């Protein structure tokens, strides 16, 4: 009986080919997704905005929750001040944000007063971020004073132009997902390099959307929903910019953001399968922790289903309510992002 044993160079070539395929396939898929999103943003930005939020908004929040639960240590120990400030601050700021609208309407505030309220909320948010940087850095002996000039500059922008500050948040938030994905790909440096080259397409796509939007017609009247989508993208803050550019850019960035969380992070951002919670530290710690995680994830799944049903019934109102509540996930990302900047192995939590 004769058996052929592959030679060492042949095995090596097969290994290289397999690793190249393992890198090129996800990168090509991601490139196709980004280019499709850009094409849809150019062709029909309102349609892309509606469909992307309808399909991906709820699931992306659920995946984010699952991700942050996996990153939450079982015992906070010396990091207790950080997590208390992070989670408590995010909840408080979200409640204040939700209360701003009804308070302004109830008190019949003027436009100048509303701008002052928004700027005050933004100032609180900046102070909260600076406090997080200080609480995270001081135990490690790292210099945190760089956050002071950055924070004061952000406050100056918030009071100088609250609308522009808000737009920075609206357009900057989708890019945060790219940073999370880049951090999670540190275990696969080759794939990380490929994905980093891919993200260079994003500004090119934005320029293409801007050029196409400047030459295209205005979005026109398609009911109040189009105006709300345009307002959310900054049409009232930047009336000199064609609404097609704003809606297209925002819809494209939101779609990329959803694509990262719903498609890429489940493949590369979790050490255990998405639906298996055994790897979550809180689950391993105690039965109460396991129950709490199960309740949070089950409630989240119920929220996703409710969101889809509500979108089907009344998309406009559901969208407004969703974006008000979704401020929580925007704020929660900040402390976790700052914590990622701490070198691995330096942060010691109580075991």
């Amino acid at each position, binding site marked *: 009986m004769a058996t052929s044993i592959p030679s060492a160079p042949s095995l090596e070539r097969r290994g290289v080919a397999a690793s190249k395929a393992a890198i090129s396939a996800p990168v090509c898929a991601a490139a196709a997704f980004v280019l499709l999103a850009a094409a849809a943003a150019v062709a029909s930005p309102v349609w892309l905005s509606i469909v992307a939020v309808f399909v991906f908004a709820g699931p992306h929040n659920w995946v984010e929750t699952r991700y942050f639960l996996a990153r939450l240590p079982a015992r906070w120990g010396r990091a207790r001040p950080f997590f208390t400030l992070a989670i408590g601050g995010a909840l408080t700021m979200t409640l204040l944000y939700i209360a701003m609208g009804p308070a302004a309407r109830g008190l019949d505030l003027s436009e*100048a007063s509303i*701008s*002052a309220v928004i*700027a005050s909320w933004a100032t609180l948010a900046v102070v909260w971020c600076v406090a997080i940087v200080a609480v995270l850095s001081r135990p490690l002996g790292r*210099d945190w*004073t*760089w956050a*002071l*000039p*950055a*924070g*004061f*500059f952000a*406050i*100056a*922008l918030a*009071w*100088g*132009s*609250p609308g522009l500050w808000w737009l920075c948040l609206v357009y900057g938030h989708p890019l945060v997902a790219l940073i999370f994905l880049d951090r999670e790909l540190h275990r696969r440096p080759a794939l990380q390099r490929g994905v980093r080259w891919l993200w260079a397409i994003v500004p090119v796509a934005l320029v293409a959307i801007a050029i196409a939007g400047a030459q295209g017609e*205005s979005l026109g*009247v398609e009911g109040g929903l189009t*105006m709300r989508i345009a307002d959310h993208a900054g049409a*009232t803050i930047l*009336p*000199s910019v064609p609404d097609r550019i704003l809606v297209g850019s925002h819809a494209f960035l939101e779609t990329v953001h959803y694509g990262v969380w719903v498609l890429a992070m489940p493949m590369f951002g979790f050490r255990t399968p998405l639906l298996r919670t055994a790897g979550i530290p809180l689950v391993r710690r105690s039965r109460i922790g396991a129950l709490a995680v199960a309740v949070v994830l089950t409630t989240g799944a119920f929220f996703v289903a409710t969101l889809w049903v509500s979108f089907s019934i009344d998309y406009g109102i559901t969208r407004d309510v969703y974006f008000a509540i979704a401020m929580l996930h925007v704020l929660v990302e900040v402390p976790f992002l700052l914590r990622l900047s701490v070198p691995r192995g330096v942060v010691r939590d109580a075991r």
Partner: protein
Amino acid sequence: MNLKYRVLAIAIACISFWCASPALTSADIAQPENRATPEPERRVRRNDQLVTFVIEASEDYQARLYVPENLLAADATAAPSGMSAVGTTVSGIALSLSVIFGGLWLARSRKRLGTQTTATAAAILVVLAATATYTWANASPYPLANPGTLVQATPTGAPLSGKVRVMRVSDGDDRIRLLLPKER
């Protein structure tokens, strides 16, 4: 010279530059005339004067309402600024503190970053600040008029025209309202 005096010297230099930089900007926009606000009328006054009202399209991105002066009472107040007084004050203070603390941080980080890096970063910041000051110092204080949903009334063909009756009211509503009859 020890570190404390160096930091103090840099902080004083930053503050001095920030105080002197407005002198380099252009501030040649005339102040709006302060006119006394008349007492609002407490009854509806009818004006039988008929005027022609035209809605037409333009290449401008702001909505404009041209009203002959003889139709307006001389009670125009100063145009509101694009930024409120509180916003301007807080923004200015925060910007100044940002520059001061940024300078202090650069001074403290000099040993870690190196003198060349610190000087380069400081030079870039100064250039950016000077450019921003030159760009925005001459900006109009008047807020940009947002046409809102008025753009839906923009005619696609010939301008629309007809007669309207001018009504002067003082019921607390500060909006200019154009009521159009239904098409018969």
